[in-house]
């Protein structure tokens, strides 16, 4: 934990002074970033999706919904989203994930970003109880848990706020959340609503 804190202090100091290890970065460098080079209709080799079957060290073994088996390597630089950015220890067996990275010659996916249990749902709110939104998605019932301090609301496309009290029963909303595996329950990350 001490090393994490030290590292954070170093990075904070660097950010506030604006140091850069790449020398000067001109805008054209950013535009010269590698283009997306997957043929139309072909599977993207740098993407993986599925449920976690086993975890060994920092490797994830994932079976895709199309039957393809993926080996995914997670590193210090990999972003892991599970309701919020988390570290690797929060990833659990049985979780679903989407991962993007670079496919190694031996088939291993060196992950750059991993989104765990992420769902994106268009629903209508059928009822609201204490820190819970009861939602319906084409007639299926979904229970959405509000996590004060984490859950955010975006009203009419304005900047996200923590206050959810403008949500109304019967209204349609779009919800980004983290699925609780094998249930109809999610933890809500963001609600997009019109008010």
């Amino acid at each position: 934990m001490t090393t994490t804190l030290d590292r954070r202090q170093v990075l904070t100091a660097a950010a506030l002074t604006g140091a850069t290890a790449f020398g000067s970065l001109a805008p054209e460098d950013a535009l010269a970033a590698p283009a997306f080079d997957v043929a139309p209709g072909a599977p993207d080799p740098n993407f993986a999706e599925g449920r976690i079957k086993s975890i060994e060290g920092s490797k994830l073994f994932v079976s895709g919904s199309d039957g393809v088996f993926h080996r995914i390597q997670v590193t210090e630089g990999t972003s892991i989203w599970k309701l919020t950015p988390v570290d690797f220890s929060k990833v659990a067996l049985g979780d679903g994930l989407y991962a993007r990275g670079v496919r190694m010659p031996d088939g291993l996916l060196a992950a750059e970003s991993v989104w765990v249990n992420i769902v994106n749902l268009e629903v209508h709110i059928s009822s609201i109880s204490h820190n819970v939104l009861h939602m319906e998605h084409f007639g299926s019932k979904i229970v959405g848990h509000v996590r004060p301090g984490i859950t955010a609301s975006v009203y009419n496309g304005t900047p996200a706020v923590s206050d959810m009290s403008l949500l109304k029963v019967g209204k349609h909303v779009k919800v980004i959340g983290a699925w609780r595996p094998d249930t109809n329950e999610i933890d809500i990350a963001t609600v997009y609503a019109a008010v």
Partner: protein
Amino acid sequence: MLTASTLFVGAALLWAGVFKAFARSAPVAAVQSGLPVWFYRTVGAVELAAAFAVFIVPIVAVPLALGFLVFLGYRKVTRPESSCGCTSAQPSPIGVRHFARAGLLLAAAVHAVIAGPVPLLTAVVVSALELLVFALVSPDLDRWWLYPLRRLKVKLTHPLADTATGDIPLLATVQQLQRSEAFRRVGGLLRSDVVESWDEGEWRILRYTIGHEGKLADAVFAVPRLTDEPDRIKLAIVAR
């Protein structure tokens, strides 16, 4: 002379028939309940005819109501995800309330055949009560009475009051970052989503992974946490 339930049976069939035969959203409802549109429209026409015929030949409603109940059971077994589509195009998987509604209609249709005539006032009152129960078990009508009640409950109990803390969500910081000059300069080089973030006084620090000419490094942004000033956002790129 009328039996106590005849008016109700007529009204219920009229409601369902008008929707199936004339509503613009009827084709949607037909698809949701897994029926061809022409068949669905025909059922609507038969219901409309029966809604009036029931006053002359009460028995016509019985096979129709029995047919609905059998169809619901059959659909529930063969395609559990499909909607009833009985009186609206709102998707709602077949459940207890749909069976209760179809059962009520069947019971009333049978009653209209076997019961003796009653005075008009009694017939109106009984049928109105039956229609009320019919409306309460119809999921299609929830938004007219159940949702307003639930909205009232929310207004009185404030179930989401805990969230009005004034905390700044991470997403708000990311949205501000994405509008900044610093992000536009390096956005195309970022390889990851937010790896981690922490607060440092008035700043919120976000760490991403950035790649340039084959090298990976940390891109660390300092974003004003409590104000919206994307021009003040600072960026450092730190080697690992």
